């Protein structure tokens, strides 16, 4: 976590007692920097417009209008919308959010949520961090050749500088990557391992979207995932000559699961 800048976060909640409580709790998380709070929709709009936050804890109900009206207004005025942990006392709203705002809302809190709030906030913050990390890796300009469309699924290889020569890396042959220290990473492929002079942070910007960071030490090719052990938080990767089990760290876990094509409702129920 230490290598990341805290996400600038706003708290939008119409009730003073509850908003203050949320602010107090969230101030203790190093992942977030609280840049403002608001109770009504106009203040909320101005706050987001002026601070351009990366994250928001938001109640559906605000004074003067609901969260969906606010998001519409932001969208209409081409203002960037932060990733949102959405709280609601009315579970039906979750459906609206799921249908219309799924790209922004990364986690739901159904009121009353103070019961076991540490766990719920942890999940919410992990999801915010994960969503922002992925956004950054999607938006950043690719560093290496070939340019420009490295992110597109149609490009299935890239060239990497490797001790003075260029190494062709076929994405389909990559099982996972491991941080090697000293700014280098080991790329584990079906043809053998390559030590490359790039950090995992740089790699995630080069690799296609189906590659995903699961911990400080590893990026995996999600098409190689065989099983995920949710108890131990490990993932088994199809790897030659032998399958490999890797740990998923808390920070990435929720968002990692969110990236996989699995029944999300079932997961939520389980939690």
């Amino acid at each position, binding site marked *: 976590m230490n290598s990341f800048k805290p996400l600038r976060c706003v708290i939008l909640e119409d*009730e003073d*007692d*509850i908003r203050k*409580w949320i602010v107090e709790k969230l101030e203790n998380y190093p992942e977030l920097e609280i840049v403002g709070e608001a109770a009504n929709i106009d203040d909320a709009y101005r706050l987001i417009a002026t601070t351009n936050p990366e994250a928001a804890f938001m109640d559906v*109900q605000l004074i003067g209008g609901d969260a969906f009206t606010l998001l519409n207004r932001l969208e209409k005025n081409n203002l960037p919308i932060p990733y949102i942990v959405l709280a609601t*006392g*009315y*579970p039906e709203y979750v459906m609206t959010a799921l249908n219309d705002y799924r790209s922004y809302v990364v986690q739901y809190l*159904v*009121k*009353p*949520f*103070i*019961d*076991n*709030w540490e766990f719920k906030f942890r999940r919410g913050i992990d999801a915010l961090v994960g969503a922002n990390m992925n956004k950054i890796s999607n938006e950043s300009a690719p560093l290496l050749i070939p340019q420009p469309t490295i992110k597109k699924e149609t490009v299935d290889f890239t060239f990497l500088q490797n001790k003075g020569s260029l190494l062709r890396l076929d994405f389909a042959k990559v099982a996972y990557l491991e941080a090697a220290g000293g700014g280098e990473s080991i790329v584990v492929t079906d043809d053998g391992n390559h030590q490359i002079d790039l950090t995992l942070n740089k790699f995630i910007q080069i690799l296609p979207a189906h590659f995903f960071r699961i911990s400080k030490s590893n990026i995996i090719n999600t098409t190689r995932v065989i099983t995920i052990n949710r108890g131990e938080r490990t993932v088994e990767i199809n790897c030659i000559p032998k399958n490999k089990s890797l740990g998923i760290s808390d920070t990435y876990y929720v968002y990692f699961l969110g990236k996989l094509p699995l029944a999300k409702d079932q997961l939520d129920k389980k939690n």
Partner: protein
Amino acid sequence: MGGSIQVQAIVNQLNPHFINNALQWLQVRLDRNNDKEGIGVVGKLSENISTVFRNSRNQKAYHALPNELKLAENYLFIQKQRFKDMLDYEMPDEDILQSLEDVNIPLLMIQIHVENAVEHGIRNQAKGGSVKVNCNDEKDYIIIHIEDDGVGREAAKKIGSKGTQNGTKMLQELEIIYNKQNNFEIKQFYEDEIFETTGGVKYGTRVILQIPKQYNYEI
């Protein structure tokens, strides 16, 4: 009859958003007093209120078996906080719950018997007691046992403890209606005075529910 329909319509107007927000406010206050028990009780209570409201609004008199078990567990959790050592309880393992997700059961069918066990069996007994709920997969049915070591139905009646007869009667009526259109039937039995002290005093009650895995609840 007309009266009860009107009352139902009014109850449906009670805004769950209001209730949940009020309980959220209450939980924040409890957290400021570091009252973890209180927060827990409010949380479980709100889950049960939401479950009953949601089904009532959707006019659904049945739901998934794990949800019903959750209702009963929340009820027992709350009562345990209130009555402390006077009450113990056991619920089925989490592992079993997953396999029961496709089985439906009438709303409150387990909860009502659990409540009877606590209110009439255990609370009429000076030393308190315990409730055990277990589920077994038996071919076409899930068999649920709700067992308590309270005073027993006869003794409770003598003490004047009557309670939720309305509830059980209502369930039985519902059961008759549903069973008419199904091959596999919902059934409930009582086994009375299932335990005996060394002094020959009989006590305890076991309710057995037979819930078909395949069952049509749409009337």
